[in-house]
């Protein structure tokens, strides 16, 4: 599903070069529910950004469903993200002027689907994430947990091959965080999309079926749970 080969990512911060990733190799199979964990500055978000085609490697390569991401130009990467990758962000990043329905439908409208299809799929995913009946609510009218459910629905509604979540529970209380993780786990099973989320929260790590530990831009542990 996703292959990361000797991925190196360097940043320049003023005159200083920051080595965010120092040659990461990882193979992620279809349908995995995995967490990339590590302390702050370990390179979790950088790795997620590279896998999500939001950024490009300094060296090395990344393949998503056997497609070389490094060879793609900006527009091709945009199209890849549009079709195959869903994102869930720490701070939800919903569009405040759109309702829950419209925020989710946004993802589908980018695919150019007919309105009937958009409506059908959006209402279905709203039910799946437990927000049936709240489709007309604006983000300001919803709790943090509900907003993150909308964000998850927005990521999943297009049936992406890959869902990337950057610290999805960081802005939620622990109970709501658990509910969100449980929801993601259920949807992972149901939709068979690959879920990769970054975290430094032990509770989140416990939920993951596979845990990759990063430290100073290098994978220090990679373990699967039964």
């Amino acid at each position, binding site marked *: 599903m996703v292959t990361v080969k000797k991925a190196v990512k360097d940043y320049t911060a003023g005159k200083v070069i920051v080595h965010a990733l120092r040659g990461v190799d990882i193979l992620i199979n279809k349908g995995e529910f995995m967490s990339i964990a590590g302390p702050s500055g370990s390179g979790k978000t950088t790795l997620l*950004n590279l896998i*999500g085609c*939001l*950024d490009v490697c300094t060296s090395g390569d990344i393949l998503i469903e056997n497609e070389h991401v490094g060879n793609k130009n900006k*527009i091709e990467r*945009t*199209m890849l*993200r*549009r*079709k195959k990758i869903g*994102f869930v*962000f720490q*701070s939800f*990043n919903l*569009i*405040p*002027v*759109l309702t829950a329905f*419209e925020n989710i*439908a*946004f*993802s589908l*409208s*980018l695919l150019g689907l007919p309105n009937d299809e958009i409506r059908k799929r959006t209402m279905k995913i709203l039910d799946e994430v437990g927000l049936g009946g709240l489709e007309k609510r604006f983000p300001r009218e919803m709790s943090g947990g509900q907003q993150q459910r909308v964000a998850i629905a*927005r990521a999943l509604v297009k049936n992406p091959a890959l869902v990337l979540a950057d610290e999805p529970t960081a802005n939620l209380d622990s109970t709501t965080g658990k509910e969100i993780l449980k929801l993601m786990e259920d949807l992972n099973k149901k939709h068979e999309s690959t879920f990769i989320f970054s975290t430094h929260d032990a509770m989140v790590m416990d939920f993951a079926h596979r845990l990759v530990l990063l430290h100073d831009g290098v994978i220090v542990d990679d373990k699967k749970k039964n």
Partner: protein
Amino acid sequence: MWFILSLSLKNLFRYKRRTFLTAIAIAAGIAAFIAIDGVLLGAELESVRNLVKYETGSARIMDSTYWKNHDFLLPKYHLNNRDQILKAVTDAGYAATPRITVLAEVSNAAGNGDQYPCILAGIDPGMDERVFSLKETIVVSPDGVQGQYLSPEKREILLGKELAEKLDAGINDAVMVKTKTASGQYTTLDAVVTGLLYTTDPIINSGMIFMPLSYVEDALLMQGRATDIVINFPEFAELDPEITKIAQAVSGVPGSENTVVKSYLEIASEYLTISQTKRGGTSLILFMVFLIAAIGVSNTMLIAVFERTRETGMMRALGMRSGSILLSLVIEATGIGFIGGLGGVILGILANIYMVNWGLDFSSLMSEMGNIGYRSIGIFKSAWNFSTIGNAFVYGMIYSGIMAIFPACIALRRSITKSLQDK
């Protein structure tokens, strides 16, 4: 596309107060643009009307050399076959009158001898009324005497009211007019002031004098001759066909080879060019005012774009192309321009309705300022200029839209990852 349009409209009302304030700035700029352009156009049209009514007539037949040297109004270049030309033109259905128009200097015969340059027009009192409207503009003099129109054959003179004030001359006072004869010698004509003219054309009020044609032609040695045959035709008649028709009528008159027929547009071309340039220049200033409003849009969009950096980062992450986001912001700014433009057009039209029907009385200001170039004094009325109203509205939206491009490009130049990290 529907989503982009819908998002733009929703974002337009996201910060209602900001949108409203920016739209007000645009509305004020557009309303001012429409109202002032209307006033300037009104002044220009009124000036042309006054020009035709009091100064030039609709067209003139002149000797070609007189026309070439029309700045000097030389009487030696005149029409020898005046009466034949006049008959030909009258037979062609036009109201026409002969005039002798020359440069002169006028002074009060009993005064201190100060001479004032002016234009002397020798007019046939009866015929001149068919073309010009001077008779209705004779006013009561400051000492309460009602002036009279000229009588043929008498040594009388009509003075512009302001020129009379400069000369300190009133009704029944004697004035002296110095000019050149057709043979180039200086001559002096003396006459009694019979009336003071106060027209809506400041040039007549301060720079022209009128005497009976018979007296002027005798004094200038031009018996049976004239420098111009002035013709009048309806205000909205098309000039070119009328000029052609007059020229054809004149061409049949023996000895008319050296005559030319010129419309008021050509006779007053210098004034009209200046007037239009003035309008263009004022429009430029108004355009600058409007541009400031457009910069307001740019500022509003700049704030909006920076506030939504993370949001646009998210949209790009989800696969929305930068071009689509740019389009969405341009539509949003165009929407501000639409609201402002609509408000500006409504305000501008309301101001214009008042100005077209009632106008503003600038007479006291104009008398303080003197001649500011327009052939108009007193009440300034506007005219409707629907192309300006339409253009102001359309360009208001276009400029507003364009003003969003720069801030949007700044935001979209940031990488997606940095945009998503924006606080």
